[in-house]
């Protein structure tokens, strides 16, 4: 068996194969449910209804998709330029930390006196700066000294998480928190409003959609985006053509780190209201899956993030009623990723026996 390139994949290939991947994922999920001793079809149905079966479920899915859109964009932007940012988790927490520092008044009460839009904008921008800063170190080490950013960004995740833990046990600890390691809650003025009053969907989701469109516009319409894509596709040719490769990488890192930090901002200011160590159940890492499923396309990231969030939310709901462990969500995502990568490969190549 070997692969032969398909010069012009038709619509059937481009739509049919990814759809087939989803069907196969569902089949695998059914198999897993059967192993867990539950009714396979009912389990799948419960996951689907849990993810999208009601207004509440849909909003819950979109809420869960919000941080994934940000981290997915962060990874997609970086990977497109061949900057392997595995540290979206650290950048997310850096953003969350700064959000809490400003939003609780710990960084100075003057901020809370600002008008609400100004305060929120300040928090978001400060979060972006913090996330960008976290990725700046690794990218400078990479461009100046050739240090592999996979290692530095990955390890920084632990450094930042432990640092947050230190703060939550010390200066940031909520005096009214009954001894739990959590920060004081944000001031009311520092909370992101809901998109529609009464519905549990906050403006972080709107910001995520705007970010996705913005990243898409940057990549396809601006000189910086052109440079980022050229550096990712062929750095030698980009350098030869006069592109400032290192500067492009630094700018990519700032954008990527900033996007990941917005996930932290939006989770704290839109959903949780304070900072804890379980703010992110690995959104930074799941962002990699999201970006890969989206083929690094910024608008695809939105679709992929909603899909991934739906699987998580649906599996949560299902496990409450069917008693199948929620780990099935991780398995489903892993299978979905594998099938999808395979399907996308098969749209571009056909298998020939021989």
């Amino acid at each position, binding site marked *: 068996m070997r692969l032969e390139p398909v010069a012009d994949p038709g619509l059937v290939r481009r739509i049919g194969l990814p759809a087939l991947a989803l069907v196969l994922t569902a089949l695998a999920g059914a198999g897993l449910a059967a192993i867990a001793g539950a009714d396979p079809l009912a389990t799948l149905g419960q996951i689907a209804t849990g993810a999208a079966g009601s207004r509440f479920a849909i909003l819950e899915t979109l809420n869960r998709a919000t941080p994934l859109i940000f981290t997915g964009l962060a990874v997609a932007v970086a990977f497109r330029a061949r900057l392997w940012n595995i540290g979206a988790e650290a950048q997310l927490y850096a953003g969350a930390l700064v959000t809490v520092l400003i939003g609780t008044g710990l960084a100075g009460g003057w901020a809370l006196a600002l008008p609400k839009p100004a305060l929120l904008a300040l928090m978001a921008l400060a979060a972006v700066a913090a996330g960008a800063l976290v990725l700046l170190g690794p990218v400078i080490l990479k461009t100046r000294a050739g240090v592999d950013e996979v290692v530095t960004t990955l390890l920084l995740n632990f450094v930042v998480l432990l640092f947050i833990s230190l703060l939550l046990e010390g200066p940031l600890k909520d005096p009214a928190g009954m001894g739990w390691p959590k920060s004081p809650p944000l001031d009311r003025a520092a909370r992101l409003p809901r998109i529609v009053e009464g519905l549990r969907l906050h403006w972080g989701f709107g910001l995520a959609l705007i970010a996705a469109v913005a990243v898409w516009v940057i990549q396809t319409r*601006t*000189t910086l985006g052109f440079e980022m894509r050229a550096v990712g596709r062929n750095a030698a040719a980009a350098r030869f053509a*006069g592109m400032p490769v290192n500067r492009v990488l630094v700018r990519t890192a700032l954008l990527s780190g900033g996007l990941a930090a917005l996930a932290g901002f939006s989770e704290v200011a839109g959903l949780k209201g304070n900072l804890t160590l379980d703010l992110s159940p690995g959104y930074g890492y799941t962002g990699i899956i999201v970006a890969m499923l989206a083929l690094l396309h910024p608008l695809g990231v939105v679709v992929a993030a909603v899909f991934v969030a739906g699987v998580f939310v649906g599996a949560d709901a299902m496990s409450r009623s069917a008693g199948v462990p929620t780990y099935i969500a991780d398995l489903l995502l892993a299978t979905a990723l594998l099938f999808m990568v395979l399907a996308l490969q098969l749209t571009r190549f056909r298998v020939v026996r021989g």
Partner: protein
Amino acid sequence: MTAGAAEARDGPVLRLDGITKRFGPLLANDGISLALARGEVVALLGENGAGKTTLMNVLFGHYTPDAGTVEVMGRALPHGHPRAAIAAGVGMVHQHFTLADNLTVLDNILIGTVPLLAPRLGRAAARARVEALSRDFGLAVHPDARVGALSVGERQRVEILKALYRDARILILDEPTAVLTPQESEALFATLRRMVADGLSVIFISHKLAEVMAIADRIVVLRQGRVAGEVAARDTDRARLAAMMVGAAVPEARVAPREAGAVLMALEDVTAPAEGGRTGLRGVSLELRAGRITGIAGVSGNGQATLAALVGGLARPAAGRLLLDGRAAGADWSPRAALAAGVARIPEDRHGAGAVGDFTLTENAVLEAYRDPPFSRRGWMDWRRARAFAAGLIADYDVRCPGPEAPMRLLSGGNMQKLILGRALAARPRVILANQPVRGLDVGAIAYVQSRLVAARDGGAAVLLISEDLDEVMGLSDVIHVISAGRLSPAFPRGTMTPAELGLWMAGHGFGEEDADAA
């Protein structure tokens, strides 16, 4: 000898019939038929993109044809099965070798012939066979040498041995001399002659007329996916073959004498360190004048890469000065500074440095100028203008491609080079760095690229032509320098030196005396 081969003694050992292969809108092979007799060398001649490699990939089972049949020894081969082709006695030596650098020659030859769980028996027999083959066909290479340590010529011998070890009776060589020195090519030809004397048949893919005339019995010319003609080598000559390849008489790049203008760029006693595997430069002085082609002759690896990097903005002199219009280039000398100063660059490595394969032709067309109007304003790209520019280049430079939105990697080397050339010349450069501008191109593309360079020179540009092909340097240059071990000879005006005299300089002779004088 197998029964099949004996049976096919009278008929052809290989017959391709009506092979058609389409890639999207591109018809790569259009009803090609070809027969190969026992003990015969057939050359497959054609421009880049004429369909030679596609045809051989169909024959070898890498591609499935849309129509047509392949018969070996009178028996049809199933499509798309390289293993069936190997079993039928077809061996292929690709342009880019498929060897594992970290294994020995013997291991590379045995790969795929030994069952997975076989004990390490039979190695001695295998080695004896490899040694016998290597002796019989003059393919000198040590079985225990690590492939990574071998020269290109030796690696090619390993590839041929690999095919022979698998009992190939038909050997396909795809552009085998592209990577060889003249001596290595001669040795390869000797090997091929021994093989046909032994009853093997050879298909020799090339676009070099001289070697095709030297080695082939019969020549099949492909043009735009079809057979344009078929002649016995003894009944034709280079001019007629070239005409068949390009469909018309080859226009020679004519270089009429011309008065040189001002010095646009100069190197003054420049020294540059050896970096990244490049030979450094030692006290090089050079003047590039308007309306003049300055040729740099020399054996590859003698400092050409460093010279090109300096002129192109990728390196700065460690000592000495790089002058632009009489002013020294500063510490900010870079590709961007070079472009801004009107230096156009045609890089040696078009795939690696000249183009982004995954980008469209449009994106590649503006790879250098994307920052400037009309392609962008205040950081915003204007893709409509870029596309129009690319379409203009495609038309003006005869780039054969599906269109400006096609990915660059689909293009053949010649068409890729035409786009790079067009991109470089579109900026109306004052200085043109052409580093190996026609290497690996077919005659049609060579004539085209060279005539464009000459036209740019006639238009007043200063051209720096770096080439390892002495004929090319002598044919095009107004003055010639020879580069050897990082040193540059004085300028020799056209017609003052014979190839033999230049050859002595290339071997480093004139320099030694200079050094002695200086000391």
